[in-house]
């Protein structure tokens, strides 16, 4: 380990463009100068300004009284950084990656919230990096790790993240300066002094507390509220293996909301037929419980119309967009029902007839080429959507319903056949349901990929690993080029 120079403090700040890392660097220098230290700051803005990550570097030196000026470095040197402040969890990780944080020396202050990078966001499935590993490494590679959700702290204090970081730095005690000197720097800047001081205090207080790990989302098990619900819950408890029960309860609750109790009972019939072929650890049943519920609760126009017009939804949006009580909120949906979706909602006979007729398709199709702006908070569209939602009662006669049930039965048949021979393979086929999601083109692509994999398996049977590979390829890019290549080869 490099020996620290007692008269020098080196500070690296890792932030994203627009988070005010430069402001923070300026504040720190002002504090140091006010306390009689020499301060120098550098950065590399350039293109990093536009949402990329940026490193700011501040070096402080205590003058030796001789009037000589020390030779200062212009960037953090791995192994020679006393304090690291990072504005986001993966930027904390980047500080570790670049060797800025050293065990036994560095005070590491990092936010635990995530700002997802484009690579993580654009994945067709789940492309998120694992933050837990970063937090572990942050402990191991620092003298002291101060971690908390700075984004939440910013919200709580109505401030900006740079003020939170500044407060956390003061609160960490990593620098030998008085808290009041920090406050004076904020006051002196003259910009948003009140809210910045509030943010500063929030950060200061948080720095005294133990590391707060990011909140894990936990889902409470649904508790039955009706006679029918209790009966189904009892059936789950009696007929399904414990590892599958949570998913089955969620599944039943979802499908009762989606259609009714009878449909949920059909779900359990189907699920039990798979469970009968399963054995410990019952992963096949647990995953079938999940994916069968998702498939049976497919998204159609009826479902969307219902969800969009619920009172709870309007309240949720109000919170999400931070509309005040005195403010008027109106919500416009971007819907693009094509003739295809409309026909699928109609009773199967009518829907089929229209789609089969070129003339009718052309004639009616004209009305469904444009996307529609649907104002759900306006009476006209609200009532229209409620009418569509009310079609739930005739849903089982709709074209889409009939098509989906056929597909589901096919899939389950395949799963059961394979489960009798190879449970691992059956599980992989269950997981392939994950490919079927979305609407319009997205739905068609996903379903197409699913069907191609199943067809390929029918032609030349694959083992579990083979199916997994094909599924992963289908999720690798949205042109399905990887999958197409694999199927051709």
């Amino acid at each position, binding site marked *: 380990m490099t020996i620290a*120079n007692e008269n020098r403090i080196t500070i690296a700040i890792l932030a994203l*463009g627009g988070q005010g890392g430069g402001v923070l660097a300026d504040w720190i220098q002002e504090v140091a100068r006010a306390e009689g230290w020499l301060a120098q700051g*550098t950065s590399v*803005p*350039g*293109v990093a300004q*536009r*949402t990329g990550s940026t490193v700011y570097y501040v070096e402080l030196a205590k003058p030796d009284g001789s009037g000589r000026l020390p*030779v200062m*470095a*212009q*960037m953090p*040197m791995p192994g020679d950084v006393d304090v690291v402040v990072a504005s986001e969890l993966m930027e904390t*990780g980047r500080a570790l*990656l670049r060797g800025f944080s050293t065990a036994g020396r560095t005070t590491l202050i990092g936010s635990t919230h995530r700002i*997802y990078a*484009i*690579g*993580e*966001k*654009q*994945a067709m*499935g789940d492309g*998120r*990096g*694992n933050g837990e590993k970063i937090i*572990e*490494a942050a402990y191991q*590679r620092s003298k002291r790790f101060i971690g908390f959700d700075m984004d939440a702290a910013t919200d709580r204090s109505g401030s900006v993240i740079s003020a939170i970081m500044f407060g956390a730095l003061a609160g960490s005690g990593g620098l030998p300066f008085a808290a009041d000197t920090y406050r004076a720097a904020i006051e002196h800047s003259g910009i948003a002094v009140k809210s910045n001081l509030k943010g500063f205090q929030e950060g200061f207080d948080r720095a005294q507390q133990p590391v707060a790990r990011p909140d894990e989302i936990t889902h409470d098990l649904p508790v*039955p*509220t009706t006679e029918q619900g209790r009966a189904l819950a009892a059936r789950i408890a009696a007929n399904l293996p414990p590892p599958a029960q949570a998913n089955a309860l*969620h599944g039943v609750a979802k499908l009762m*909301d989606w259609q*009714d109790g009878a449909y949920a009972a059909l779900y359990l019939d189907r699920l039990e037929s798979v469970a009968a072929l399963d054995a410990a650890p019952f992963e096949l049943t647990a995953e079938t419980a999940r994916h069968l519920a*998702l498939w049976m609760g497919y998204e159609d126009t009826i*479902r969307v119309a219902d*969800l*969009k*017009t*619920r009172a709870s939804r309007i309240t949720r*949006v109000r919170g999400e*967009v931070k509309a005040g009580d005195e*403010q*008027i*909120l*109106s*919500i*416009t949906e971007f819907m*693009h029902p094509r003739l295809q979706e409309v026909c699928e909602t109609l009773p199967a006979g009518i829907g089929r007839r229209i789609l089969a007729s070129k003339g009718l398709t052309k004639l009616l199709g004209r009305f469904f080429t444009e*996307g529609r*702006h649907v104002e*759900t*908070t306006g*009476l006209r569209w609200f009532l229209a959507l409620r009418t569509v939602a009310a079609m739930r009662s005739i849903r089982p006669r709709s074209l889409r319903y009939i098509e989906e049930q056929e597909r589901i039965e096919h899939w389950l048949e395949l799963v059961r056949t394979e489960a009798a021979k190879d449970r691992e393979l059956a599980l992989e086929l269950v997981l392939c349901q*994950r490919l079927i*999601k979305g*609407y*319009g*083109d997205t739905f068609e692509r996903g379903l197409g990929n699913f069907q191609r994999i199943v067809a390929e398996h029918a032609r030349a049977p694959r083992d579990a690993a083979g199916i997994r590979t094909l599924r992963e390829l289908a999720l690798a890019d*949205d042109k399905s080029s990887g999958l197409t290549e694999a199927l051709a080869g």
Partner: protein
Amino acid sequence: MAERSFKKEVLKLTAGEGEVFTGEGILAVTKGLLQSGVAYVGGYQGSPISHLMDVFADANDLLESLGVHFEASASEATAAAMLAASVNYPLRGAVAWKSVVGTNVASDALSNVSSGGVTGGALVIVGEDYGEGSSIMQERTHAFAMKSQMWLIDPRPNLPSIVDSVEQGFRLSEASNTPVMLQLRVRSCHMTGSFVAKDNVRPPLTVGEAAASPVRDTDRIVLPPANFLHEVEKIEKRWPAGIAYVRDNKLNEWFGPEESEEGIGLIVQGGLYNNLNRAMELIGLADSYGVSKLPIYCLNVVYPIIPEEVAAFCKGKRAVMILEEGQPEFIEHELNTLIRRAELDTRIVGKDMLPRSGEYTADVIRKGLAKFLEAYAPALAPQLEAANPLPAPVAKEIPQRPAGFCTGCPERPIFTAMKLVERELGPTHVSADIGCHLFSILPPFNIGNTTMGYGLGAAGASAFKPKEGEGSKRSIAIMGDGGFWHNGLTSGVGNAVFNKDDTVTMIIDNGYSAATGGQDILSSRAENANRVTKNPITKAVRGVGAKWVRETHRTYDLKGMTSMLREALTTEEKGPKVIVAQSECMLNKQRREKKATSAKLKAGERVVRERFGVDSDTCTGDHSCIRLSGCPSLTIKPNPDPLRQDPVAHVENSCVGCGLCGEVSHAAVLCPSFYRAQIVANPGKFERFKAKVSGAIMARWQAGADKARAARAF
């Protein structure tokens, strides 16, 4: 209006003799210019020199009061040509740009001014964009200095040294009739520090006075036979004069003892001195004040090299290490030549122990130094601890964070449109340019095949003449408004018209030179007291003869954008097709509107805010929307559905309601999860009444539906 305002900071530029000036490197440079009695300044923005241009612009009043003429030049070539004013007149002039790209653009003028030589001091301040965070090809300005014979100063990175270099640069230029380049590395431009100021000096002669009494000397013009005389003059007069000035005024520096026991020494480029000292400090060979145990010869002037100084330093030393960043290793080559000529046996160590490429950080230097010491002074060699990199399983979780378009950027929908049209017509060759729009080459758009330089987007497509008949495809060129005025009008559009190029040129006009920090340009719609703006690009394009010209004033209109692009790619009409896609840079717009909105809110006036959102219960987590947008405010969050595992799309509160999300879900037939929320603050009376009535009716309806749902619920 530039992204960053220096209005407050430029007040510091009036500091007088003895005052301590504390601020950024670029402000220090400006102060150095004013202390030197500079008569004119010019330049072109680009990192890391953008802020210098912003400082000049914001200091316009001060410059005027001192009689200093400032131009925000149209290009680096324009700026370099300004130095013509120093050829015949004792006028001190300074120009600035990003190097090496800016120097490339300026090279014609630079060659001319170096050939004829200067009377007044001519200083070229180059922001060397090399190493971490650089956005350009990794080349050295050093080569330009050598080939045109301009002196190159690379000062130690501290404010007093930098300011001193500015002043010395002018004197050196005048003493040797040679233009001088002052190289500032990225971090030095943005580095804060202090120095003791001197009074500002009015130029003894102003540009106006010079223009009033013209001087003509054909010997200064590059035409035979004068050009042959220039070459001789360069070698016989200016070179020795330059060397003499550097030597006599001790522009280079020496640190540490004259000799070390081990018979070794170090030669370092001035700009790397601080990194070297830190590296030496950490292995116990120097202290934090630069007191070194080894002899160091610090080249603040890296070109020309002073032969007698080199010989004196190397004499009696077995080995000398040269710390020279970048390649080729010009200085190392020259040192070897000089050593041979001086008949010395000193071994010059350089790129054999230091990396051939990349930035020479303190860490890199420490490692190189350790190797050098092991070979030539083992007693001093440090025991470097083994690296302890983050284990791969952890490291791979950390995502890359490429730059991208800002939230609500008007350029995003243009590339969304290109992606949608690409789905219909298949991929085309796309010639990209320099500017924010170049982020299109990165995820999620992945559009763009080449980029040939600033304003060269259209020229880069000119070779692609479509084949005849079936499968014929037009290539697309992209150009920003900055690049267009920089040289795209002539080299791109004019050339395409003249050669009947059958290409599509998309000119992205966001009203500013946005990538470099939002400076105004000819076509800016902003009012600018000191410049002429509001000159439409379409007018210029038609002026050079383009016939098929389309314009949109709302790039967010995705449907309009796609159909315009489709038409350009498929129309029967031959010749260049030019689309000018115009919408204001959101960064600049927000800066302006945020202020106005908060003032309105304070005054209790009606304010409408729009933003987008995603219903997480209808979103299925495919992220198609993200792949067609990449907006920072459009992100993901954990799926609230207990059964679903893929994260759902989510719009953050930073959304500015540009409208693209809605347009995309319509145009690409995506999911119905997006909604636009309109939030009215301080609504009117009637508005409130209407909302109340319809809210009450809907609430009754919803209560009924909720009851029915509860009855059939789990």
